[in-house]
């Protein structure tokens, strides 16, 4: 499902070249739930960005869902993300002017699905995360945990193969965090979604089947 071969990622800051990922090799099987842990600056979010097609490797091969991302154009990468990837961010990143249902519907605006069907699919996704009764609520009317569940509904509404989650419980209290992690486990077990999650929280990582520890751009 996800295969990174000899991946190097560097950033240029002024005259200085910073190597964030240094010849990384990793394979994540289809249907797996894997956590990426490591200190700040270890490269875990950079790795997540490469897997999600948000960024490009400086060298090496990034193959996700049978697609070689390193040879794709920006437009192809955008289409790839829309089709194969579901995103969950630490700070939920919902659109404040849209209701929960509309936020979930957002990725479907890029498809040719008719409006009525889009709404049905968004409602279904909200039901999966247990928020069908909050469909017409705006983000400001929801708790942090509920907002993150709406974000998860948005991540799955396109039925992506992979869900990438960047610190999905970072802004939540323990109880809400546990609910989110349980939901991710459900998506992994019941809906066979491959999940790649960046976290600082060992408790969160314990929900994953595999945990990778990154330090200075390499696995420990």
């Amino acid at each position: 499902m996800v295969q990174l071969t000899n991946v190097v990622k560097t950033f240029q800051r002024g005259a200085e070249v910073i190597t964030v990922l240094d010849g990384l090799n990793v394979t994540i099987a289809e249907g797996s739930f894997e956590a990426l842990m490591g200190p700040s600056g270890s490269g875990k979010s950079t790795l997540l960005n490469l897997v999600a097609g948000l960024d490009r490797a400086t060298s090496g091969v990034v193959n996700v869902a049978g697609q070689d991302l390193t040879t794709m154009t920006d437009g192809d990468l955008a289409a790839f993300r829309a089709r194969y990837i579901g995103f969950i961010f630490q700070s939920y990143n919902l659109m404040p002017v849209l209701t929960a249902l509309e936020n979930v519907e957002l990725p479907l605006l890029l498809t040719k699905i008719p409006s009525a069907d889009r709404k049905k699919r968004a409602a279904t996704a909200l039901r999966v995360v247990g928020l069908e009764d909050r469909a017409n609520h705006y983000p400001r009317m929801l708790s942090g945990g509920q907002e993150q569940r709406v974000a998860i509904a948005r991540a799955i509404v396109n039925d992506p193969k992979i869900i990438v989650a960047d610190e999905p419980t970072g802004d939540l209290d323990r109880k809400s965090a546990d609910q989110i992690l349980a939901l991710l486990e459900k998506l992994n077990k019941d809906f066979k979604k491959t999940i790649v999650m960046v976290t600082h929280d060992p408790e969160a990582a314990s929900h994953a089947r595999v945990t990778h520890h990154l330090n200075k751009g390499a696995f420990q």
Partner: protein
Amino acid sequence: MNLVSLAVRNVGRNRFRTSLTVLGVAVAVVAFVLLRTVISSMEVAVTHAAHDRIGIRHKVSFIMQLPRRYVDTVRQTPGVHSATWANWFGGKDPRNPREFFPTMAVDPPSFLDVYDEIAVSPADRERWFADRQGALVGDQLARLLHLRVGDTVTLAGTIYPGNWVFHVSGIYTTTRRSMDRSEFLFHWDYLNNAIPERRRDQVGWIIARVDNPRQATGVSAGIDRAFDVQDIQTLSMSERSMNLSFMGMMSGVLAAINVISGIILLILLMLFGNTMSMGVRERTQEYGVLRALGFLPKHIAGFILGEAAALGLTAGVLGLALSYPFVQYGLGRWLEENMGSMVPYFRIEVATAALALGFSLLLGVAAAVIPALRASRLTVTDALRRID
């Protein structure tokens, strides 16, 4: 929900800031509309000039007079339907010395024939024709000076000194905007017989109606040719050209108004630009999320430009909504009734409203072009600020 409505929804994101921007732009639109209406009110005489009338004046200057007999020659010129004449009297009402209104000595029957847009009742017409001291007064002037039919009014002559007594024979209105409704018209004979003999039988200008408006230029040339061999030559031109030459005297004022209009548009641009730049900067992370979800740079640019267009349109509509009652029922009506001789028509033209709305929309979009380009050129990771 669709991509367009998503852009429009963003207008209400920061309601306080949006309201202030919309209000600020709306006020600028009101100012713009007012200035353009001043210009269009000045142009109204040109715009609505009769196509079938030509004016004939002294070739040297408008203030020099022509012999009365020239009217007969004009009437005999091929293509001329009828002709009349007028003298600028320059009368003042001693009771209202600050009020300016046109006072003209005219030949009543031929004047009403040439200016057929003057609407006057048969009784008033008959009364005016019969009374050598009779005056026909425009309805706006009558309201301003509180004149009624049967009143006696004494005007002080400035060009023709002395106190001149008139009887208000009738009140006129007009069927077209080509005629001012604040004029004071009286018998030329009354003036001509009362002035010293050396000043008699002179007219200020001649106005002719032509049979075919398309031949007005040729008829004008024919009239001027007829007087080429005379001591006094004429300059004939269409009513529109004549009005334009009057407007030319105010070209400085018009230029100043145009400059101020341009400054207002610049203010509009800056107001929009400021609001859009702040909004886009605050939402950079959201654009990153949208890009992550698969939206393309063109979508991001479209959202921002769409939002700016909605903002511009809202402000433009509000500006017009404020302008209309203010001008149509307030300022415009007041100006027409109290300064009718200078501002006979002060209303918002459709073209002015369209221009204001168009500029509001266009400037809104133009101001958002740079923020939209910047936002759409950000990489996804930069927008998300997720370089770890």
